[in-house]
């Protein structure tokens, strides 16, 4: 029997090959047949989750709630030292100095990355802005969010901080950060589904020990991570409660 692994579609494209390398590595280590399926967007990945096709997932914090509460998933590990943070940026020539000074009708460019969108919209709340009084400009990638700002098609852009930092210096020179979130406790997690739960301890141990092994270190590097850290169920429940509170 083969199990299905997938990665939240918001991963950095540079690390696509890294996830395939990781999948090969984990299959060898656990002696388990796992197929990696990459979905192009959140909708198709959600559909696969709804149909109980997924057994292992590198999930964004927004989906984690549904995976735990509705689908019986449990957390394994998170990337050490990594947290999901959001940035609100504007065109360098935009005169706005403070988020609180933004006005109704502000054009907001964002990707469909659900947790980043949520954090970004929260950072716009001090200006009394919400879904009902902004003009939404959904974009496929963060580079496109930046382009909307450069062309003046959007007033503010919501970025995953890591994606913003990875923009070329040429683009960043023409943008300005209004706010960078400092939440620290929201993160992606590798999670294991009900059909694989009997192997949870085995998977968790192998992953936590991964950086102690030379090959493992190389695989981690290809993902852009240094180490996997164990995530306890309680920690995941806390993050889910936090996301729940923010999503209000």
């Amino acid at each position, binding site marked *: 029997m083969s199990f299905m692994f997938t990665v939240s579609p918001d991963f950095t494209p540079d690390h696509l090959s890294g996830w395939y390398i990781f999948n090969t590595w984990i299959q060898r280590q656990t002696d388990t047949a796992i197929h990696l399926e990459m979905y192009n967007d959140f909708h198709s990945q959600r559909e696969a989750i709804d149909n109980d096709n997924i057994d292992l997932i590198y999930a964004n914090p927004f989906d984690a709630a549904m995976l735990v509460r509705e689908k019986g998933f449990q957390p394994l590990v998170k990337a050490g030292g990594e947290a999901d943070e959001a940035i609100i940026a504007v065109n360098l020539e935009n005169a706005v100095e*403070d*988020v*609180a000074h933004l006005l109704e009708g502000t054009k907001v460019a964002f990707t469909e990355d659900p947790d980043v969108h949520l954090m970004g919209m*929260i*950072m716009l*709340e*001090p*200006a*009394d802005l919400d879904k009902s009084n902004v003009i939404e400009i959904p974009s496929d990638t963060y580079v496109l969010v930046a382009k909307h700002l450069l062309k003046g098609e959007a007033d503010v852009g919501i970025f995953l901080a890591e994606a913003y930092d990875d923009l070329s210096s040429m683009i960043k020179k023409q943008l300005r950060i*209004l*706010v*960078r*979130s*400092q*939440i*620290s*406790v929201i993160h992606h997690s590798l999670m294991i589904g009900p059909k694989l739960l009997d192997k949870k301890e085995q998977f968790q141990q192998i992953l936590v020990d991964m950086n102690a092994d030379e090959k493992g270190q190389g695989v981690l590097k290809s993902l852009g991570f240094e180490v996997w850290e164990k995530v306890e169920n309680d920690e995941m*429940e*806390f993050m889910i*409660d*936090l996301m*729940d*509170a*923010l999503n*209000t």
Partner: protein
Amino acid sequence: MISDMKPEDIVGDYKEVTLDLYESISRKILYTEIETPYPDGKLIVSTTTPDGVITHVNQSFIEMSGFTEEELIGAPHSILRHPDMPPVAFQGLWDTVNKGEKWQGFVKNLRKDGGFYWVKATVIPNIRNGKLEAYTSVRRKPSRTKVEECIKLYPTLF
């Protein structure tokens, strides 16, 4: 336990009032008109027992409240209770969360130094295996318009 505020902790000119908190516990409050603006991009997070005793705080909580972590852990959440907050607001909070529902509202919190800060607070009951284990409170930056509305409304609720 909760103790009276001490003049030596207070920064600036202060007023004094005695606040009835809970179960006939009262506390001497010393408060000033100095506002600490809520920092952009940060969340204040804390967890309490079902009785409202603080069990966890994050760094932003420590920075904004002016207390140390040691002072906060084990203290009742009402250590932040500002005399300008009408008791009816907290009654609404407890009535809502006791039903297992989320509560959200705008709160003026008291700092250790007698100053204050406004937050948009969300309190959620943490239900584990069908049992209420704790409450998590997440506070974020409020809009100034909403704060101005509360400044007008709250004095009418006493």
